[in-house]
């Protein structure tokens, strides 16, 4: 229960961040929400289903480019983001249907390759995406910088709320149960009548849609995207690390992990610019080696275990 209270407190803090009038905090809050969407989405396929997807950046990039291009054509932002989500879900369903027959390392590599492939497509389709020159997305007329930042903060926040609701529903519903069966023993799950292909594809599609929408918002938020930026492998790895921090398999954990990670990364950036990626690397190494079950497992060491008769 204390876990939920802590999360509640964090969320309340996030909601009121823009009221502080501090643009920096608002930016940080938007970023935290964005990564929380990605970590919770990754947790669906990587945590609940046990398929190590490294394809998050692919859907993020597709979403960013879809909404960026739509915005440039004059489509309103909400519609553009919806469009990003739509393309994201269709692509994720197709890719998932094809790739989810692979397991373990092969699935991991295939999803990584999808990111590379999409980046190259974005790089080469110069007419549509601007190629390596990047894509400029027009600013919204008549809005102040701070107002705009606040709008994107709330938009990202709303997206996180929807994502969290869907993920929590999946986690607790019959789907979540089917996913747990698939994770533990896919063959046996099929034998007792779990349609594993259907559930895996469904969940992969779900894990793509919100990431694509987050990418869609991101594009308009930063006004400039380029292939190396939105199809960055780091965008694929960070959600995994965030889920690791919070404890793989839990939606709440993934969201907390994202907030912890973004805060930590920001502190590192601010103080040790030259060594930031090295320190983050060290953190990842320490996390994997010493806390593979996430921060939640720390508690076990602090409290003596209740003696059982």
């Amino acid at each position: 229960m204390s876990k939920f209270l802590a999360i509640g407190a964090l969320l309340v803090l996030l909601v009121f961040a823009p009221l502080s009038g501090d643009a920096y905090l608002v930016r940080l809050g938007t970023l935290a929400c964005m990564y929380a969407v990605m970590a919770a989405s990754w947790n669906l396929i990587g945590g609940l289903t046990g398929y190590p997807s490294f394809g998050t950046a692919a859907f993020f990039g597709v979403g960013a480019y879809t909404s960026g291009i739509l915005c440039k054509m004059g489509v309103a932002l909400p519609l553009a983001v919806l469009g990003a989500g739509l393309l994201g879900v269709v692509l994720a369903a197709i890719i998932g249907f094809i790739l989810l027959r692979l397991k373990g390392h092969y699935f991991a590599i295939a999803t990584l390759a999808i990111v590379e492939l999409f980046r190259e497509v974005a790089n080469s389709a110069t007419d549509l995406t601007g190629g390596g020159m990047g894509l400029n997305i027009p600013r919204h007329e008549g809005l102040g910088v701070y107002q705009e930042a606040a709008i994107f903060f709330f938009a990202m926040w709303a997206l996180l709320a929807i994502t969290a609701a869907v993920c929590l529903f999946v986690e607790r519903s019959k789907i979540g149960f089917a996913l747990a069966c698939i994770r533990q023993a896919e063959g046996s799950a099929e034998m007792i009548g779990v349609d594993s292909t259907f559930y895996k594809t469904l969940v992969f599609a779900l894990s793509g849609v919100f990431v694509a929408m987050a990418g869609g918002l991101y594009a308009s938020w930063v006004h400039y995207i380029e292939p190396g930026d939105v199809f960055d492998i780091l965008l694929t790895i960070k959600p995994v690390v965030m889920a690791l921090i919070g404890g793989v398999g839990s939606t709440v954990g993934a969201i907390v992990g994202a907030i912890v990670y973004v805060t930590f990364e920001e502190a590192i950036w601010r103080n040790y610019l030259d060594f930031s990626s090295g320190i983050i690397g060290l953190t990842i190494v320490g996390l994997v080696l010493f806390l593979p079950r996430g921060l939640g497992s720390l508690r076990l060491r602090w409290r003596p275990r209740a003696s059982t008769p």
Partner: protein
Amino acid sequence: MIFYQVLVNGVVLGSLYACIAVGFSLVWGVLNIINLMHGSFIVLGAYLALLAYSSLGLAPWWTVAVAAVLFFGVGYLIQRFLINRVVAAPVMLSLTLTFGLDLIIQNAMIYFFKADYRALNLNPALGSVALGTVVVPVDRLIATIFALLLTFALYVVLRKSRIGRAIVAVRVDQDAARLLGVDIRSIYAIAFGIGTAMAASAGTLLALTFPIAPVVSYAFLGKAFVVCVLGGLGSVPGAVLGGLLLGLVESFGSYAIGPEFAVMLSFGLLIAFLIARPQGILGRRGFE
């Protein structure tokens, strides 16, 4: 004939790719670890060649041996003390661990060598040889020959030496190997050391032909992925075949539809192979 030129370019490129990928394939096949540091070890090897040439005047093909010994030690220690702890863990953990380690190496490289591209220019330049209409730069030719020699050396080691047989035994059946008295942990460390040594030596050769910067590690890593999947995991002939195939596909692909599509082509090939024939051209069914 332009055809022969493109063919020769493909073979030259392919031999280098084979040499890049063979260590990666060994580590993946034997340890079941996808080593995301592989590209960085290649670049570190290349920097070693640059340093040796600029400060000692040592040509890269002499640096190969130094790089191999030095990086065997580095790889051995990394495996022994870090990766051994996650060898049995899910791929999500082991892949993330090597990514974290790679971030550290990348950061160190950018700090010490800066992020800009550097090229090794031999003085005097070696020129090129012409066979009829086919022209090959001599430095590339040397790099190719050394790459093939290195790959062949690994093949002989795996085939003939006791350690090599033990590595292959662990790859084929870990439990049986353990029962026969093979020290699995030490074989893991040696295999990882060899993988690292191959990467670094390939890197010293690549310094002859490619401009080097910390970021190019990802391009090399990508090639290693593709070659492994094309040729099949954990076998030297597989890596050679995969490397040559990728080299030829890229060479003919760039010629036919333009160099900007070469990377797209190789990753498309990777995904197609993963779906249709994940065990690779050679190799048994590798996927779990």
